[in-house]
C-alpha cells in the first residue's frame, strides 16, 4: 500500500481535471467527484499509515531535469511522518468537502470552489509526499496559490480581495528566504534530495555556519507559511474566505506546512543549536503574543485565527526545544480540534449570519450538536485530559522544560492558561448566557447531516487522537517518529516530569475557571472589569504603592494595617481576576496596536519605498527622443572614457 501513496495525491488531481474539463466549473456536479476522490485518498492514506507505522519506509522518483552533471528528480517518499500527515490532511479535507455541501449551497461560485478544493488537496498531499526540497517548494507555491484564490472567493467585497493579496504577498516574503535557503543548501551539498542532504549533514560535509544559515532561511519560509511573528499578519485577514476553507487551509493543513517543513528537515535543524533556539524562541513568543490578542477579539473566527497562530507557535516551540515528537504530535491534534472548532463556528455563522461573539449567546439551546462538538474541541484545545490537546500540549511543555530555557517554558505555560481562558470566553459568549440578539437567535437552528457528520467525526478525532501519543498506551507516536529519522539520528527520550503535567493541568483548569468566573458565573461583570483597568493601572504605576505602604506601616501601624486590609480586600480578593484579565487586555491591545501600525507599516513601507522609487525612476522616461539618445550615447561615451583612462 505504501508504494501507492502517490495515488493518494493523484486522485484529487484527477478530480480537479474532471471538474475543470468535464463537469465544468460553474455547474454543481463536481462536488461529488471531489468527495469521492478525497475519500479514496483517505482510505489509501490509512493504509499507508498502517504500513509506515510498522516501520516501512519507501519511495521512488523519476528524472525530472538534468542540469550540468546534476540531476533533479521528482518522486515521493513515505514514512510514518508522511503517513500521519496524509491521514490528517485527507480526513480534514474530506470533512471540509462534506461540510461545504451545506455551507456553500447556492453559492455563485460553487463549482469553482470545489474545483480549487480539489487542487488544494492535491497540492497539499503532493507537498507531504515530496522527497526533495525543489518539489516541496513547487507544491508550497501551489498551496499558496489555492489559498489566495479561496481567500478571495467572495471578491465582490474589497476587503476580501485585499486579504487575498495580503496573504499572497506576505507569505512571499518568507518564500524568498526559503528559496535562498534552498539555493544555499544546493550550493553547499550539490543535491536537494532529502536523504542525500541528511547524509551530508550527518557526514559532517557542511560547516556549522552553513547549516545555521540554511536552517534559518528555510525557517523564514515556515514563518511566512505558518503565520509566525512577525509575518503572522495575513492569517487573521485570511478569515475573509469561506469558513470551511479556514478550517482546511488556515487551521489544519497549509499553515501547518511550515511546521512540517521544519519537522521534515529536523536532521538539518537539530544540527544547529542557533537555529533551534530561534525556532523555539519565535514559536514561544508567537504562542504567547497571539494568545493575548485572542483574549479580546470579538469576531469568533478571529479568535480562532489568533488561536491558530498561537498553537502553531506551540508546535515550533516543541520542535525548537528539540522534540520532533512534540511538534508533530501537536500538529496532528491541533489539526483535528482546530478544524473542528472552525467548522463548528461555521455552523454557528451559517445559522446566525454573524461572526460577532457579542451578537451570539444561548445557542446551546438551539444547536446542541454544534455546541457539544465545539465544547469537545475547546476542551481539547484547553488541554483537559484525556482529550487530544492535553497529551500534545503536555509533550510540548515537557520538551520546553527539558530544553533548559525556563523563560520559554513559562511562556508556554502562561499561554496554556490564556488559551483556556479565551476559549472559555468564546464558548460562553457564543453558546451560553442570554441571547444578545433575539432576532438572530430566533432564526438559529441546527444544520442537517451535512453539518453534523463532519462535526461528529472531527469531534471523535479531537477527543481520542491524543491517545496515540499518550503514556497510557506506551507512546506509540514516539516510536513512529523514531522510524522516520535517517540513520545516525536519534530521538531524545524525554523523561516524563510530573511537575510539568501538573502545571499544565493547573493552567488549563485555572484558565477555564477564570473564564467561567468572568463570563459564565458573572462574578465580575465585564464592564466592571474594563472600569477596573484604570485604578489597576495607577496601582502599577505607583509600584503597588509600596513606598507609601512602608510609610504607613512605620508611622501609623494600626491605620496602616486597616488600610492594608482594605487594599487587600479591594485589590487582591476582589481584583485578582481583574488583574489577570486587565493585564492580558492591556497587553493584547498593545500588541494589537503593534501589529497594526508597526508590522503592517513595515510591510507597506517596503512596498511604498518601491513604488516611490518607481515614481521617481519613471520620470527619467521623459518621452523626448533627444533625451533617450543622450542616455544611450552618453552611456557609450562614459564607457569609452572609463576604458581609455581607468581600466588597465
Amino acid at each position, binding site marked *: 500500500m505504501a508504494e501507492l501513496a502517490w495515488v493518494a495525491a493523484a486522485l484529487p488531481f484527477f478530480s480537479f481535471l474532471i471538474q475543470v474539463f468535464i463537469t465544468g466549473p460553474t455547474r454543481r456536479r463536481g462536488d461529488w467527484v471531489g468527495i469521492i476522490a478525497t475519500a479514496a485518498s483517505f482510505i489509501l492514506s490509512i493504509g499507508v499509515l498502517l504500513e509506515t507505522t510498522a516501520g516501512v519506509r519507501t519511495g521512488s522518483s523519476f528524472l525530472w531535469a538534468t542540469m550540468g552533471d546534476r540531476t533533479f528528480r521528482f518522486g515521493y517518499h513515505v514514512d510514518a511522518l508522511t503517513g500521519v500527515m496524509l491521514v490528517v490532511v485527507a480526513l480534514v479535507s474530506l470533512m471540509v468537502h462534506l461540510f461545504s455541501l451545506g455551507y456553500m449551497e447556492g453559492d455563485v461560485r460553487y463549482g469553482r470552489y470545489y474545483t480549487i478544493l480539489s487542487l488544494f488537496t492535491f497540492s497539499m498531499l503532493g507537498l507531504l509526499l515530496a522527497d526533495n526540497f525543489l518539489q516541496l517548494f513547487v507544491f508550497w507555491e501551489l498551496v499558496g496559490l489555492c489559498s489566495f484564490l479561496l481567500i478571495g472567493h467572495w471578491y465582490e467585497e474589497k476587503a476580501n480581495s485585499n486579504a487575498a493579496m495580503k496573504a499572497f504577498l506576505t507569505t512571499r516574503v518568507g518564500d524568498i528566504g526559503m528559496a535562498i535557503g534552498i539555493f544555499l543548501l544546493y550550493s553547499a551539498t550539490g543535491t536537494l534530495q532529502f536523504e542525500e542532504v541528511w547524509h551530508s549533514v550527518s557526514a559532517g560535509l557542511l560547516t556549522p555556519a552553513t547549516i545555521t544559515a540554511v536552517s534559518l532561511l528555510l525557517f523564514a519560509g515556515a514563518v511566512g507559511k505558518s503565520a509566525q511573528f512577525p509575518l503572522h499578519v495575513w492569517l487573521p485577514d485570511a478569515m475573509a474566505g469561506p469558513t470551511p476553507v479556514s478550517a482546511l487551509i488556515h487551521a489544519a493543513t497549509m499553515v501547518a506546512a511550515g511546521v512540517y517543513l521544519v519537522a521534515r528537515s529536523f536532521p538539518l535543524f537539530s544540527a544547529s543549536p542557533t537555529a533551534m533556539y530561534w525556532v523555539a524562541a519565535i514559536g514561544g513568543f508567537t504562542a504567547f503574543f497571539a494568545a493575548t490578542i485572542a483574549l479580546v477579539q470579538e469576531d469568533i473566527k478571529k479568535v480562532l485565527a489568533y488561536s491558530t497562530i498561537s498553537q502553531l507557535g506551540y508546535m515550533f516551540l516543541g520542535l525548537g526545544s528539540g522534540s520532533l515528537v512534540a511538534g508533530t504530535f501537536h500538529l496532528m491534534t491541533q489539526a483535528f480540534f482546530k478544524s473542528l472548532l472552525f467548522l463548528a463556528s461555521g455552523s454557528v455563522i451559517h445559522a446566525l449570519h454573524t461572526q460577532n461573539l457579542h451578537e451570539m449567546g444561548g445557542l446551546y439551546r438551539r444547536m446542541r450538536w454544534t455546541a457539544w462538538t465545539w465544547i469537545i474541541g475547546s476542551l481539547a484545545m484547553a488541554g483537559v485530559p484525556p482529550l487530544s490537546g492535553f497529551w500534545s500540549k503536555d509533550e510540548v511543555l515537557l520538551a520546553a522544560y527539558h530544553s533548559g530555557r525556563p523563560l520559554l517554558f513559562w511562556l508556554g505555560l502562561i499561554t496554556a492558561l490564556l488559551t483556556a481562558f479565551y476559549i472559555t470566553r468564546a464558548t460562553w459568549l457564543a453558546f451560553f448566557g442570554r441571547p444578545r440578539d433575539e432576532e438572530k437567535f430566533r432564526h438559529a437552528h441546527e444544520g442537517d447531516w451535512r453539518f453534523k457528520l463532519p462535526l461528529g467525526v472531527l469531534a471523535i478525532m479531537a477527543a481520542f487522537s491524543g491517545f496515540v501519543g499518550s503514556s497510557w498506551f506506551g507512546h506509540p507516536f514516539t516510536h513512529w517518529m523514531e522510524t522516520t529519522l535517517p540513520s545516525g539520528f536519534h530521538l531524545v527520550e524525554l523523561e516524563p516530569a510530573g511537575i510539568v503535567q501538573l502545571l499544565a493541568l493547573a493552567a488549563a483548569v485555572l484558565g477555564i475557571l477564570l473564564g467561567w468566573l468572568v463570563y459564565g458565573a458573572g462574578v465580575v461583570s465585564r464592564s466592571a472589569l474594563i472600569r477596573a483597568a484604570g485604578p489597576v493601572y495607577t496601582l502599577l504605576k505607583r509600584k503597588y504603592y509600596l513606598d507609601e505602604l512602608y510609610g504607613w506601616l512605620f508611622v501609623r501601624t494600626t491605620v496602616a494595617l486597616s488600610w492594608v486590609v482594605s487594599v487587600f480586600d479591594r485589590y487582591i480578593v476582589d481584583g485578582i481576576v481583574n488583574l489577570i484579565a486587565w493585564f492580558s487586555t492591556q497587553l493584547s491591545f498593545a500588541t494589537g496596536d503593534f501589529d497594526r501600525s508597526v508590522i503592517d507599516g513595515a510591510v507597506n513601507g517596503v512596498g511604498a519605498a518601491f513604488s516611490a522609487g518607481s515614481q521617481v525612476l519613471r520620470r527619467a522616461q521623459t518621452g523626448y527622443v533627444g533625451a533617450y539618445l543622450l542616455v544611450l550615447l552618453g552611456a557609450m*561615451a562614459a564607457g569609452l572614457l572609463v*576604458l*581609455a*583612462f581607468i581600466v588597465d
Partner: protein
Amino acid sequence: MSTTLLVFFALAAISLLAAWRVVTDPQIMHAGLWMGLCFVGVAGIFLLLTAEFLAGVQILVYVGAITTIILFGIMLSDVEEVQPQEPPFYRFRRRFGRWWQPALPLLVAAAFLVALFTIYGQAGWSDLQPVGPAASTPAGLDIPAIGHALFGPYALPAEAASVLLLSALLGALVLAMREETLRVFRGSPGSSRVLQPGSGMAGREVNAGETDHPGQDEKKEVGAGT
C-alpha cells in the same frame, strides 16, 4: 608638408566644415546640401586612400541617392523649419530644463573624441605608414578583387542585402503613400472603409504631378482633425 598631405587637410577641412554646417545651418535645405558636400569630401578622402571604386560608389550612393532622398524628404514633409534661430545650447535648455544639461551633447562628443584618440594612441596607429607602394591601389581595393569578393564569398550577404532593400521598399511604400493612392494601387477604389480624419492627408504643396488628388479638401479635414 607634402602635396598629398595638403590635399588631405583641404578635403578634411571641407568635410568637417560641411558636417558642422549640417548641424548648425538654420535652413534645413541648406543643411541637406552641406551634407552632400561633406559626402563629396569623404569621397575625396577615399581617393586619397586609393579606393577609387568606393569613391565612385560614395558619389553615386551617398551623394546621388541618399542626399537626394533626404532632400525629397525635406520637400515632401514640407513643414516649417523647426531649427530655431537660437544657439544650440539655448535650445537644449528648453528641451531639458536644467541649466547644465545643454552642455551634455558637447560633453558626450568631446568624451568620445578624447577617449578614442587616447585609445588609438595606445594602439600605435597614429604614425603608422601604409604597407606597400604608396600610390598604387592595393589588391584589396582593386575593382576586380572587390567584384570577385562580392559575388564570390560575399554573395550570400549581397543577396540578403537585396532582400533588405525589398523590405525597405515595402516599408517606405506603405508608410509614405497616401491611403487613397494605395487603394488605387491595390485596385479597390470603392472600398467601404471609412477614411479617418487626418489619415491620408498630403501637405500643402504636393508635387504638381499629384494634384489630381483632392488635396485641398483634405487639408481642411486635417485642420479639423488635428
